């Protein structure tokens, strides 16, 4: 074989912004191409919003059902992407050696995690845009401080990402798939998304209120429905979950 010059060594990493940008774009494409992920992140929240707004199945208390439901469904959308979707996708990436192979590429691990977060945020923006349009069509009339909403969404994303990555990095991929879906279902019912927490007995309620999904849906509802100021209690709960979840994931995440 004569030398063609094609492979003359010229090694080197691309710039960090370029690598993170490319990785974010790829992760987002993978997510949006996956049918099961779309079911979880788009179809289920949309159906719940439309169905429960139109049909009086659950007693959502005084006022329009859509004003109660929209904050809950937004919280659910965040959970579906940052927790369930990210846990399942990352679990299988670990199982199929994707994380391992990327570990040998010039992309640093922290940059991979940054890209994953970027892809979660892009997906959330798309979800929230879609759900907001639908909610307005259903007669939603939100109020409140947009900054408080952004802060809740950001801390909620951090809390759910930590828990999702902890699960993906410690359990087998199949176990993550089953557990992430189960948790999604349980928190959908018991996290104040479509069923108000005051429908539960007091003892159960005081525990359920500490869940990240309850804090996020309750905080969003306080702001968007009642025009409350900064929901510090809920933000505090989310911050604790974020620190615990991300800390545990950083400590125990296994790449192979």
């Amino acid at each position, binding site marked *: *074989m*004569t030398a063609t010059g094609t492979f003359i060594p010229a090694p080197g*990493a691309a710039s960090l912004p370029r690598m993170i940008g490319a990785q974010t774009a*790829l992760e987002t494409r993978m997510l949006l191409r996956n049918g099961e992920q779309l079911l979880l992140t788009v179809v289920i929240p949309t159906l719940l919003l439309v169905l429960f707004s139109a049909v009086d199945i659950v007693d959502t208390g005084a006022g329009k059902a859509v004003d109660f439901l929209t904050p809950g469904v937004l919280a659910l959308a965040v959970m579906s992407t940052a927790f369930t979707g990210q846990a399942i996708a990352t679990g299988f990436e670990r199982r199929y050696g*994707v994380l391992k192979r990327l570990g040998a590429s010039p992309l*640093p691990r922290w940059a991979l995690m940054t890209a994953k977060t970027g892809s979660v945020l892009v997906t959330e923006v798309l979800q929230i845009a879609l759900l907001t349009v639908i909610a307005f069509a259903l007669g939603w009339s939100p109020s409140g401080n947009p900054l408080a909403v952004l802060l809740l969404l950001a801390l909620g994303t951090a809390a759910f990402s930590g828990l999702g990555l902890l699960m993906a990095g410690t359990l087998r991929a199949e176990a993550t798939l089953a557990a992430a879906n189960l948790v999604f279902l349980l928190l959908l019912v018991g996290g104040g998304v479509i069923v108000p927490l005051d429908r539960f007995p007091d003892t159960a309620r005081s525990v359920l209120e500490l869940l990240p999904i309850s804090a996020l849906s309750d905080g969003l509802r306080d702001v968007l429905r009642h025009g409350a100021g900064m929901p510090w209690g809920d933000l505090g709960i989310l911050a604790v979950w974020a620190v615990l979840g991300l800390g545990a994931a950083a400590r125990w995440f296994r790449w192979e």
Partner: protein
Amino acid sequence: MRMDPAVEMTGLVKRYGAKTAVDGLDLSVARGTVTAVLGPNGAGKTTTVETCEGYRRPDGGRVRVLGLDPVREAAALRPRIGVMLQSGGVYAGARAEEMLRHTAKLHADPVDPALLIERLGLESCGRTPYRRLSGGQQQRLALAMAVVGRPELVFLDEPTAGLDPQARRTTWELIRELRADGVTVVLTTHFMDEAEQLADDVAIIDKGRVIASGTPEELCRGGAENTLRFSGRPGLDLASLLKALPADSAAVELTPGSYRIEGKVDPQMLATVTSWCAQHGVMPDRLAVERRTLEDVFLELTGKELRS
């Protein structure tokens, strides 16, 4: 270019729980060469290579890759090496071209992905997601991903396992081209012919140790001498042939009419045998000089079949 070795490994030990996967392994890979790490399944090939790639932290010994510690100096090393894992490494839903283009984007001065797609016959993958590609297509994509960043050194873990003969040949050609362009290649294989075809140096490992190393020629030369075989009529008087040959030669009739002569096979020996045949009116049918293959070397060293 500095001429210190691309890989320098001395006394590598790696244990997984109670099991010792690598047990005092020494390996040196010269720059610009192709080195084959040869051994049966479970010999420690993958552990050895993955230690070089920084995936495994050695329990003992010293490893330097391009002069760097693969674990502590991983950030400096990784942009300079190319890695092909034994399997996987690609998003289940990604398309071949998409994944290769992405890998190229992580490097400063990559090879044009379109060129690699064409060279490795990956056009046929089209828009099929990775999980539905054939094993051979997945292997070739992993190879393309290992070389697209123009590394100085590539590690290929069983690059031709499961390939059809044509794809295997394509892979061999690419490895030869890498070498011609000055890339150092370390590959693992359990195919003898692959090591003989491609490698400048071969390290045969078994039970976590190097049991023989050298060029393929060196390995095949040493030990038992070369062999000459021929067929003729049964019951030839081999004693008279042995008188004509050097003292340390041996001759046996393996089965009636099938003969094997062992000794230093050179033109003189061949002439002696054929003229003896002529004197005895024997037509030496299927006359063949048999070189020891790496397979023979391995069998002698370990007493077991390599392809298991």
